[in-house]
């Protein structure tokens, strides 16, 4: 069953590709897994009205975010027969080209892993109290807005 205590999902700064490779490697012992689905969010050099984005600074209400993430995890495990589900989200500054969100769902068959991964990504964007401040080269900023 699921842990009672919400797991931490936050790390300070960007998520390194090397860590992602290591996380994948750690799943090779779980020989019942047949399919992994991964989503990664990467900070874009968007052209805003006032300049080009060079980083996003993420802030959160950590206790509320972890509690809601726990609710999402429980709902996803109840809905899909997953082997495991790992989520990491950055806080603080993440530069353009770096990874700020990593969702990793594994299952016996592909359909469950793919559907669960997508649903987790959508719910994270809609339901977790996290805010992204887009910082431009000229030090102006704009608050990120998520697409529906």
């Amino acid at each position: 069953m699921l842990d009672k205590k919400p797991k931490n999902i936050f790390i300070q700064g960007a998520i390194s590709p090397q860590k992602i490779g290591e996380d994948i490697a750690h799943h090779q012992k779980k020989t019942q897994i047949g399919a992994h689905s991964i989503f990664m969010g990467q900070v874009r050099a968007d052209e805003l009205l006032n300049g080009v984005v060079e980083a996003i600074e993420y802030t959160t209400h950590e206790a509320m975010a972890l509690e809601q993430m726990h609710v999402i995890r429980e709902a996803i495990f109840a809905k899909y027969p997953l082997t495991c589900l790992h989520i990491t989200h950055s806080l603080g500054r993440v530069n353009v080209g770096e990874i700020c969100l990593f969702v990793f769902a594994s299952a016996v068959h592909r359909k469950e892993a793919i559907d669960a991964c997508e649903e987790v990504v959508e719910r994270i964007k809609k339901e977790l109290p996290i805010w992204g401040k887009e910082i431009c080269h000229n030090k102006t900023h704009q608050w990120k807005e998520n697409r529906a």
Partner: protein
Amino acid sequence: MQVRLLFFGNLTDVMPSTMLDWDWNGDGKTVNDLLNMLYSSYPKLKGKTFRVAVNQQFVAMEYGLTSGDEVALMPPFSGG
């Protein structure tokens, strides 16, 4: 009575800090009453879109506050 106010996202652009302890004399107030007091002191807050969470639960404008509550003002989320 005193509540602890927390501000997030674009609200931090119009507030002097991300946290504010807010006192008043007398009876309990609703979230709506509290916001009206805040709007008087920080008129730029008035045009903003946000939801209110008290002690980490979203509440309606009529919710009655208790001394010691944490009141978080949260604009639309933009994680990921």
